């Protein structure tokens, strides 16, 4: 029994096929919502699946001047990081497959592996667009990482633990933390958009300036793996924010409703703003984002100190 459970957990549920499939579903919902906000029709339900199959079937070019091993291994590493992170979050509202004290930090670092891999991938190639894209991706990593972590720390402090499943259980049955820590919620949602490089923070892959940023030279399988990795991160990120701020995830229906509501808000934020330049992003995060997150933390620490 002990050897079957890890295999099922990694290959089928919650990681593996299930999270890949739900990544595709969430990508579809996101694109459809953004299209409806812009008064157009949007893709059909199987579009992300078709995109993935098409990319997997295409020939992969390894450009001149790159390290071939690194070039091929980076997308795999990025996807692996995202898939591993799925083992520690309450997917579908059920107990996470593996849980230990401190797994909040581990999950967040696993999620950041994607951005690091993108940065490395961009720096690896000789293409000018990729180099600029990689620089921007890493700059953005340095700017949103701290406020996002602090925003997720707020509920952790309230729950008194660094373990995601404990925080999840703590959040259920109490007043939703979006009400008690609204600033933290705002920073968390916007931080999630920064992590996933969604507009208005899509400067690292600005289509009109640097073609596709760090991923310009990727095609075929590598690009497909990066894309599906980003979708998996979308699901995991939404799960985390919903579990912490929207009153915990108790059962599958709860999970679906809360994450889809969050996706509605995120898609709306994607359509509302023009793209921020990289220096504006950094300025915004380090001035306003960090200040807000710190202020929120301060309030929490004082409250907790007073109660004790």
């Amino acid at each position, binding site marked *: 029994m002990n050897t079957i459970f890890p295999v099922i957990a990694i290959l089928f549920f919650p990681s593996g096929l299930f999270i890949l499939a739900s990544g595709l579903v969430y990508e579809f919902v996101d694109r459809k919502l953004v*299209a*409806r*906000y*812009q*008064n*157009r*029709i*949007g893709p059909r339900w199987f579009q992300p699946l078709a995109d993935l199959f098409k990319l997997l079937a295409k020939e992969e070019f390894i450009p001149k001047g790159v390290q071939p091993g690194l070039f091929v291994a980076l997308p795999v590493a990025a996807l692996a990081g995202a898939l591993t992170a799925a083992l520690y979050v309450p997917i579908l509202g059920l107990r996470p497959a593996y849980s230990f004290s401190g797994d909040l930090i581990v999950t967040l670092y696993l999620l950041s592996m994607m951005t690091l891999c993108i940065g490395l991938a961009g720096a690896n190639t000789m293409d000018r667009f990729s180099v600029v894209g990689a620089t921007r991706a890493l700059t953005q990593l340095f700017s949103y990482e701290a406020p996002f972590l602090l925003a997720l720390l707020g509920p952790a402090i309230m729950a008194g633990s660094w373990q995601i499943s404990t925080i999840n259980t703590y959040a259920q049955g109490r007043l939703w933390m979006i009400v008690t820590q609204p600033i933290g919620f705002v920073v968390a949602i916007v931080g999630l958009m920064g992590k996933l490089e969604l507009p208005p923070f899509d400067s690292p892959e600005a289509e009109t300036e640097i073609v596709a940023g760090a991923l310009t030279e990727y095609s075929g399988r590598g690009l497909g793996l990066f894309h599906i990795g980003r979708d998996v991160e979308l699901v995991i990120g939404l799960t985390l924010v919903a579990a912490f701020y929207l009153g915990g995830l108790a059962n599958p229906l709860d999970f679906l409703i809360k994450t889809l509501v969050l996706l509605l808000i995120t898609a*709306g934020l994607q359509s*509302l703003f023009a793209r921020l330049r990289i220096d504006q992003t950094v300025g915004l995060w380090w001035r306003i984002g960090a200040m807000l997150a710190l202020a929120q933390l301060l309030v929490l620490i004082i409250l907790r100190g007073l109660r004790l």
Partner: protein
Amino acid sequence: MSIGAMLGDIVNSLFKKPATELYPFERKPAPEKFRGKLFFDPEKCSGCQLCIKDCPSDAIELITVDKVNKRFVMRYNIDRCTFCAQCVQNCRFKCLNMSNEDWELASINKEAFEVYYGKEEDIAALLARSTEECAEAPGKG
């Protein structure tokens, strides 16, 4: 000074139908003056060839089957036509007009792009004459 000035638009759009027209399932009719495929009425043609003179792309050609009896056949190359309607403007006898219903002209073979206008017997006579010429000179394409 506002953040999200288009918020009203995007929230409204969630409850409205998309602005996309689902062609070919929904096909809006073209307005009256639309310049689609050219049509030629040989009855009134006098053979002045003013239409040919001003065509910017040599899309039409008037072939005389019988000049005295005013029997003309027009060969119209749809793929060369720019749909400018200068020929329609030039014709003094209103032989030419551009349709507003026939505008889906894409085709996968070249034969559809060369159209002959004229009386049936004139076109038959013309084609017979050209096959005769082809039979006489088999070496030429």
